[in-house]
């Protein structure tokens, strides 16, 4: 556990739990007459408290990968462990934020977040406090009784983040959490997520199609390619948090990643898509 990427931040809680290890993951979908290889020999070690960004063209298996770690899909080869324990089924230790907020439209914001605590063996008061604290954490105080249709896209996504954090998971998985938001809201929420991560100190694995976002937030950026989905690059971002968007280092790394992506000869289409996705 010598990897302490943001130890420079005073007061930051570095957790000693939340190590995610993926070894030789192979995943395919079987259809009647053919099989689709989605992930092949995917291996990755994530340190406790680390923030890892994963970028890659659409269809390269990013969402599939997160579903495997979350435990929503158990049919794969290889091993996934959290703190040395093999992952089986879903668990409150592994939080998941979907690209769409997936709040239940028939529940108030408060009830949506409280739903995550349904099976926690703690008192009613403790639950209420956790819910209130996390609503405050994502800056939604005053909207406790609002229904999802009364929230903007950015607010709904904040609520979804609060819901996924209320169980204080060891690792938080984020699947393109800001992909559906407008550019300004996105930049704003990236800053918020960084603040939350610094405050909570849990491990985070975030998927994005935005190289800049990946670099701004990640201690490490993992670059994937499609058919089958695999890691082609890993970039360490040795900058303290919170970061300055204008940092020349980030710009250099961005150019580097994009240049490397455009040089991958066997999948030119996906690279074009990735670059397009970056500035859309």
């Amino acid at each position: 556990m010598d990897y302490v990427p943001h130890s420079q931040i005073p007061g930051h809680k570095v957790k000693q739990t939340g190590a995610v290890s993926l070894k030789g993951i192979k995943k395919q979908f079987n259809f009647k007459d053919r099989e689709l290889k989605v992930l092949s020999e995917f291996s990755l070690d994530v340190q406790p408290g680390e923030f890892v960004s994963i970028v890659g063209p659409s269809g390269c298996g990013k969402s599939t990968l997160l579903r495997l770690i979350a435990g929503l899909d158990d049919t794969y080869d290889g091993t996934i462990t959290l703190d040395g324990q093999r992952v089986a089924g879903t668990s409150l230790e592994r939080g998941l934020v979907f690209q769409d907020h997936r709040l239940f439209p028939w529940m108030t914001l408060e009830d949506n977040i409280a739903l995550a605590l349904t099976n926690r063996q703690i008192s009613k008061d403790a639950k209420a406090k956790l819910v209130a604290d996390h609503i405050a954490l994502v800056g939604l105080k005053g909207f406790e009784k609002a229904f999802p249709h009364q929230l903007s896209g950015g607010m709904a996504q904040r609520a979804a983040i609060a819901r996924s954090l209320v169980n204080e998971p060891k690792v938080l998985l984020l699947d393109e959490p800001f992909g559906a938001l407008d550019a300004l809201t996105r930049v704003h929420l990236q800053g918020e997520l960084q603040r939350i991560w610094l405050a909570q100190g849990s491990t985070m694995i975030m998927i994005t199609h935005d190289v800049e976002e990946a670099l701004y937030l990640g201690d490490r950026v993992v670059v994937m390619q499609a058919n089958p989905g695999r890691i082609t690059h890993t970039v360490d971002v040795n900058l303290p948090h919170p970061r300055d968007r204008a940092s020349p280092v980030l710009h250099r790394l961005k150019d580097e990643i994009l240049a490397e992506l455009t040089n991958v000869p066997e999948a030119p289409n996906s690279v074009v898509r990735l670059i397009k996705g970056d500035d859309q």
Partner: protein
Amino acid sequence: MTLKTLNLNAFKPVWLLGLIPPVLFLLWWDHEAAKGGANALAFVSLAQVGQALIDMFSSGELALSYGSSLGRALSGLLIGGGIGTLVGIAMGLSKPVEWAASPIYNSFRQVPILGWLPLIGLWFGSGDLSKLIIVALSAFYPTVLYTFEGLKQVEARLLDVGRVYRLNGWQTFWRIQWPAALPSIFTGLFQALAFTWISTIGVELLFSSGAGLGAMMQQAQLQARLDIVLVCILFVGLTGFAINFLIKRLSQHVLSWRSVRA
């Protein structure tokens, strides 16, 4: 000042327009009735209908018939709708139940409700039990269908959220599947209400023994009492209207979380 003007503008009683056709119709009707002669057989004057209403009201006849029809419709709705919802839930949640129940449900549904009358009449006679069975059946079909469809259409993406937070079967049903299916279940309830009221009157007309608005109409027809028939029709129509209104308000209230923006 401006507020007042705004309020006046906002108050546009469009529903008053809905009163124009029936008023015109009644004027025409009374005109025909006043002609007398051969017309007198087909039309009775409004005054006569009004007198019949007063007579039936004061003799308690109307209350008895109306109460018994309403009671039949409501108990049929409760029994048929209740069982229908349970069957729909079982079919929606369990594949084996769906496979076992679908063929028989779908073939029985093809028989018009009143098509069961001869069979039910032979088995159970033409008393209250037979009537109740028919009415309950008419509530049963739509409730099964819409409860089942509603549960089938719950999206996997919502169920995944339940899995992430480790909800058990009962929690998943109560917190996710049931509320997600509720709009469809209400559509079924709407239909069930309309069908129970129609089949209540229909079955009373056909099994015309005992109390009820339908039976009263049947007897009035035999005695050529057109005024009584008309009073009955009036009550049947108004009740159907009221039922629809109530269920609409109820569903708006329960489904208030839905919005145009959602």
